[in-house]
């Protein structure tokens, strides 16, 4: 159950941030929701949070550090060993999915985010399923 889970979303698009905020707060009933519009000083900022995230949702083309490099930072830090890292992407390129898998993401969810399907995707990911819904 994602009830009470802690979420962090890094996203430069304001519409996607707004949708995610509604989904996580109003539908998923997250324990905490932190949304960052940029990725500067990422690890440092995450460490300052009251709760380390259970889920990190990453836009790939966020700036100044892109999602791939953020993933490398996260994977290099043992504090995030149990954190699931999900790519959130609007990419049309099927090659991107292969790259996301190769880089070690725990899954991917397509933008625009879908109010009807997103909650069940999160529940499935939390239950251990690997989702590549791009």
């Amino acid at each position, binding site marked *: *159950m*994602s*009830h009470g889970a802690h979420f962090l979303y890094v996203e430069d*698009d*304001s*519409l*996607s941030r*707004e*949708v995610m905020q*509604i989904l996580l707060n*109003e*539908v*998923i*009933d997250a324990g905490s929701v932190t949304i960052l519009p940029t990725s500067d000083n990422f690890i440092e900022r995450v460490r300052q949070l009251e709760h380390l995230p259970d889920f990190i949702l990453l836009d790939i*083309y966020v700036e100044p550090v892109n999602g791939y490099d953020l993933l490398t930072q996260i994977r290099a830090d043992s504090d995030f060993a149990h954190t699931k890292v999900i790519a959130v992407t*609007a*990419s*049309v*390129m099927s090659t991107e999915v292969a790259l996301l898998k190769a880089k070690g993401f725990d899954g991917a969810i397509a*933008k*625009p985010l*879908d*109010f*009807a399907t997103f*909650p069940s995707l999160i*529940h499935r990911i939390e239950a251990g399923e690997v989702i590549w819904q791009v």
Partner: protein
Amino acid sequence: MTSQWDEFGQLLDALNADGTERFKAQRRLIEMGEIVVEPLLDVMLSNNYRKTWAIAQVLGEIGDRRCLQGLVLALRSENPLLSSTAAKSLSKFQNQVDILPYLLEVFPSVDVITQQTITLTLQQFRDSRAVKPLMEQLRQAKSPVLRCAIIQTLGILGDSIAAPTIRTFANDPDHHVREWVIEALDQLQSSPTP
């Protein structure tokens, strides 16, 4: 009958729960069917985000004509969760009623989140009447995610009349929009002439 309404009250409460409990309540309300349509419509128009979202999904599944009216009303809600879910649920009526005019009518006046959902819903209808209104909305779309969704939908709808408008976004500042321009133009090129 009393016990049925007791159960109804419990199910409404369960719609506020997370995950499995809410899903079970939704399934039971769908089973109860027409009898719960009116009370669900009353509750849907309240301001409880999660409950309204869950009810709009249930009404779409029940498929009663009264649900249709309620969902059309909900399309104009200022709660984007409700209006977006209403748009999605309305698509389930497409075989009974022509839903497209409702969606196109509200499109310019709803919030951008609902516009995004309506755009994705229009992909399923594959109805060429949506092409010109979508072209118009594309010209006005400030959100790159909405521009992506509209361009993607125009590609799927397959009417080459949209190609010149799509092409004007070839140098869009957002790289995903530029990707979708290429994809949509490819789709239009390979689509049969309408």
